């Protein structure tokens, strides 16, 4: 079979398909979205009727995957790093229950925060949970390690984390596929109490998990994904994790590093390999994409003894993603740099598309709220977060999905009136529903705008669970019928919309306003597809 050019994300998806998964469970989030989209567009997946529709959020996704694993089948869960925060409860506890069918959880980290609120390193989560972790360094490894992850998960009956970062997720290279495994048959856990985490049972299961660690470390030594390459100059020994290994190699044209190199792509860390490097080298340089997890472990609390260089002593920057130049400097090699960026080059931040419905909503909201003191609009995560930038300057917060409503409620509890929440349709069904329930139960005086553009816009227009359900959800939660309004965010409706918003801002209870108009991008895409079909029909 010829090599295929695949994104890191796509290589993972193909690896999972070939490993015989029966489903992928996910909520969109950059840089993980393309994993699920690849499965959704795969002919093979369709023929096998694999599960690949989106979940409401990362927690429901991981729980779905765990249920599939319980049934004996292989399941992939995929999310961005902050999605793992949402799924933390099932993630940590799935380590205690263990897996039945293979369960691989992809956590896609975003160092340098290209499209995220933070740059947390998911390896801390898996270490915390005692879940073995694979960190591929290239697209082929992404494919191979996904497959290996399922085998490892079934051999040890634990979930396995596959940790990637943006650069690998969104970079393309040739990938060689291997044979295709059949799906597992349904076979429920042999031990009927395996998934029952009552304390007495959980204690036993937890001890089992701890016992598995020695075997998992042995796997890290023997799998071939962690490699030790010896070299003559032992003044320095280098630990290079995941993608950092590539940046190291980039600095040596013949790919021969003069120092011993330990490439790490599998955790728990292989202690004997690290010990060898320690014993033979004077100084250790740790290169890792993300936060200094390995470096901190090697250094110990008091950082006594051998000198360890990395992000903590300033040899590498403390934050942000690595690149070949940063690694060159850390190695003491000459840096390369072209001409500086000319001063006249202006920054070009992302912005709301022309004709975006959010623009009309913000124009109305801004005018309605102008008579109050500023700083009372709590927002959320999505395209509408761009309303924080000029010319709108319309919102005052963006923290985590769903936080808009609950923060507005907390501010209202503190006495801020009016207090406003702005949340997208997909974010509302991801994490806003329970927040709204809190407000309804407390009869909080807040105005909630659910911006319904009928899609998950920010991540490229995936289906939204909210579609056609928002009013019913709000009514079901107990929002009063008279205080649920649907608006059409269009310039010609400005005055009418303004009037509704102004009135509800003054209401001392929960109001929900739903400006509803389709995202221009998904609308255009549909029109193009329609046009194409028409052409074909002729």
């Amino acid at each position, binding site marked *: 079979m010829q*090599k295929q*050019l695949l*994104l890191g994300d796509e290589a993972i998806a193909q690896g999972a398909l070939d490993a015989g998964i029966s489903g992928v469970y996910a909520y969109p989030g*950059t*840089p993980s*979205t*393309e994993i699920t989209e690849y499965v959704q567009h795969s002919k093979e997946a369709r023929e096998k009727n694999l599960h690949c529709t989106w979940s409401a959020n990362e927690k429901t996704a991981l729980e779905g995957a765990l249920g599939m694993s319980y049934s004996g089948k292989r399941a992939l869960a995929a999310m961005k790093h902050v999605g793992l925060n949402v799924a933390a409860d099932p993630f940590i506890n799935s380590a205690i229950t263990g897996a039945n069918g293979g369960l691989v959880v992809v956590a896609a980290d975003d160092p340098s925060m*290209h*499209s995220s609120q933070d740059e947390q390193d998911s390896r801390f989560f898996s270490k915390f949970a005692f879940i073995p972790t694979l960190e591929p360094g290239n697209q082929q490894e992404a494919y191979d390690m996904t497959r290996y992850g399922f085998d490892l998960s079934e051999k040890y009956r634990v979930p396995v984390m596959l940790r990637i970062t943006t*650069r*690998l997720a*969104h*970079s*393309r*290279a*040739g990938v060689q596929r291997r044979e295709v495994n059949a799906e597992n048959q349904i076979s429920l856990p042999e031990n009927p109490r395996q998934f029952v985490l009552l304390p007495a049972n959980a204690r036993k299961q937890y001890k089992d998990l701890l016992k598995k660690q020695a075997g998992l470390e042995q796997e890290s030594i023997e799998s071939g994904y962690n490699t030790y390459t010896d070299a003559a100059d032992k003044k320095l020994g280098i630990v290079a994790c995941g*993608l950092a290994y*590539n*940046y190291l*190699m*980039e600095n040596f044209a013949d*790919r021969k590093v003069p120092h011993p190199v330990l490439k790490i792509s599998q955790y728990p860390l292989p202690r004997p390999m690290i010990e060898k490097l320690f014993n033979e080298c004077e100084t250790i340089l740790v290169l890792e994409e993300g936060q200094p997890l390995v470096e901190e472990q090697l250094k110990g609390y008091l950082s006594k003894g051998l000198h360890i260089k990395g992000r903590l002593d300033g040899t590498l920057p403390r934050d942000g993603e690595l*690149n*070949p*130049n940063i690694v*060159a400097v850390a190695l003491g090699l000459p*840096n*390369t*740099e*072209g*001409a*500086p*960026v*000319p001063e*006249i*080059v*202006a*920054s*070009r*931040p*992302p*912005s*709301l*598309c022309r004709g975006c419905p959010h623009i009309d909503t913000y124009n109305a909201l801004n005018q309605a709220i102008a008579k109050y003191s500023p700083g009372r609009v709590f927002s959320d995560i999505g*395209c509408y977060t*761009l309303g924080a930038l000029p010319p709108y300057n319309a919102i005052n917060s963006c923290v985590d999905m769903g936080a808009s409503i609950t923060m507005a409620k907390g501010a209202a509890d503190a006495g801020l009136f009016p207090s406003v929440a702005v949340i997208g349709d997909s974010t509302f069904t991801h994490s806003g529903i329970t927040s709204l329930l809190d407000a309804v139960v407390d009869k909080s005086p807040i105005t909630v705008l659910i911006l319904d553009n009928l899609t998950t816009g*920010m*991540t*490229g227009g995936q289906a939204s669970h909210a579609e056609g359900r928002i009013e019913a959800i709000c009514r079901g939660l107990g929002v009063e019928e008279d205080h649920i309004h649907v608006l059409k965010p269009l310039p010609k409706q400005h005055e009418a919309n303004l009037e509704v918003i102004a009135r509800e801002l003054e209401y001392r209870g929960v109001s929900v306003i739903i400006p509803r108009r389709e995202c221009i991008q998904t609308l255009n895409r549909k029109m193009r597809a329609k046009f194409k079909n028409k052409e074909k029909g002729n």
Partner: protein
Amino acid sequence: MKNDIILAGVGGQGILSIAAIIGLAAVDMGMHLKQAEVHGMSQRGGDVQSHLRISDEEIASDLIPKGCADMIISVEPMESLRYLPWLSPDGYVITNTTPFVNIPNYPEIGKVLDIVQQQPHYVMLDCDTMAKELESAKSANMVVLGAASPFLCIPFERLEAAVAKLFGKKGDAVVALNIKALNAGRQVALNSK
């Protein structure tokens, strides 16, 4: 044999189809390829770039080291300058001259083009107008790719074949227009060499 290329533009301008054509041709020649793309937030009208590396040897890093790119191919003039730190001292800037103005503080276009002309090696051409004259307004990116073609380690026929392959589904007329645009861009570069 290798090319390290920075592709530059604004979200939505279609730099990825340039990458796809070079990639197709390179892979057909049995070369290695790595291509780092930008997805997500910046695609909403922000600046976007792609690092495209092709080589007959194994490639280590997905990112091109600064000061090492053989060329910057840009669909937008100001964006061509944003990546100068990546360009090697004898690298080429190949850029469209039609600005994409979606920010209030876009600099004076004359000054932008002056700086392009101060670069040791550059090709500048009005791809938008050229594409319109060919009655193929959407092919501006093919024009700029054509202008870059003399500096690529890929024979021109291979690029034409890749265009045919990529656009084949859309019919012969579309393929022909894109190949015309590719040739028009190439002529400008050959004449200015």
